[in-house]
């Protein structure tokens, strides 16, 4: 991909993310339906989607509070799920330029899907592509939350539509080109094994953070 025409890179990122932004909007709608049931006012739910912008963590916080859990438990569950953004942010860091504030705010557009779309085959983030992909997914998430809050319980369950299977399929499609190199295959195999092995024994969120260690198998030899 060329940096010759930056606006093109923004558009191509948005275009690549458009289908997944629609899927994200449906999940945003189900967040908008569930949050009020856990004691969130519509404003709180909408502001959470607009500022946190991390679906699984938001669902985790809401469901812990809905089940009568403490605030500390809800925040811990959500942040544990989001701890993977530590390594993800680190992987994006070399590509994000400009002043500290600019880098910090650009990083807020990082979600699993936008990061995966913006990372080229080399694994290096293209910042303009991140802007397009992250922006499209952000709009889908916030607009979906608003629609869910407005529609109430009338929204169909994402699972009944099979949309929970859309996410692994997206990640698989983005993983496929990285399996051509031996280092990529080693890292992928290690990451998957670590994540699955830890799933039954570690709190949600931890298996994916630990899977980052799988990258050492790809880093050892070139």
């Amino acid at each position, binding site marked *: 991909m060329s940096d010759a025409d930056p606006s093109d890179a923004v558009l191509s990122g948005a275009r690549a993310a458009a289908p997944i932004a629609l899927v994200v909007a449906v999940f945003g709608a189900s967040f908008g339906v569930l949050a009020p049931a856990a004691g969130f006012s519509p404003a709180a739910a909408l502001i959470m989607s607009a500022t946190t912008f991390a679906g699984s963590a938001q669902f985790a916080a809401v469901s812990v509070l809905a089940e009568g859990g403490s605030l500390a438990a809800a925040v811990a569950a959500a*942040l544990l799920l989001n701890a993977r953004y530590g390594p993800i942010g680190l*992987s994006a860091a070399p590509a994000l330029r400009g002043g500290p504030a600019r880098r*910090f705010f650009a990083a807020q557009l990082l979600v699993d899907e936008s990061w995966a779309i913006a990372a080229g085959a080399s694994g290096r983030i293209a910042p303009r592509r991140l802007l397009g992909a992250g922006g499209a997914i952000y709009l889908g998430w916030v607009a979906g939350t608003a629609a869910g809050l407005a529609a109430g319980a009338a929204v169909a369950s994402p*699972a009944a539509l*099979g949309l929970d299977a859309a996410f692994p399929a997206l990640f698989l499609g*983005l993983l496929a080109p990285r399996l051509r190199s031996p280092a990529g295959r080693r890292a992928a195999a290690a990451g998957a094994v670590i*994540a699955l092995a830890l799933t039954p024994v570690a709190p949600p969120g931890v298996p994916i953070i630990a899977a980052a260690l799988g990258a050492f198998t790809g*880093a050892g030899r070139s």
Partner: protein
Amino acid sequence: MSAAWAAVVLVGLGTALLKGAGPLFFGGRAPGERLNRFLEALAPALLAALVATSTGADGGRLALDARAAGVAAAALLLTLRAPAIAAIAAAAAVAALLRAAG
């Protein structure tokens, strides 16, 4: 402040810091060769972990359900060099049909 609003503020701040810390402290710097190889291998490791957990984890348990069938359909299409969007649509359709039938 209600627990809901406190969660909004705390989760929001914590998430912003998690996302922003790397770019804030290491942004725009060319990494050394060893770090570079590690960062390049992060993508396949994390993507494979996301595939594995979003296919086979249900809460804190491993589960083989309609999602796995959907992802298998997507994998088949991807090996046949179908576009990603077709693979994503097939995964959702297969999972939805299985659930409707089950």
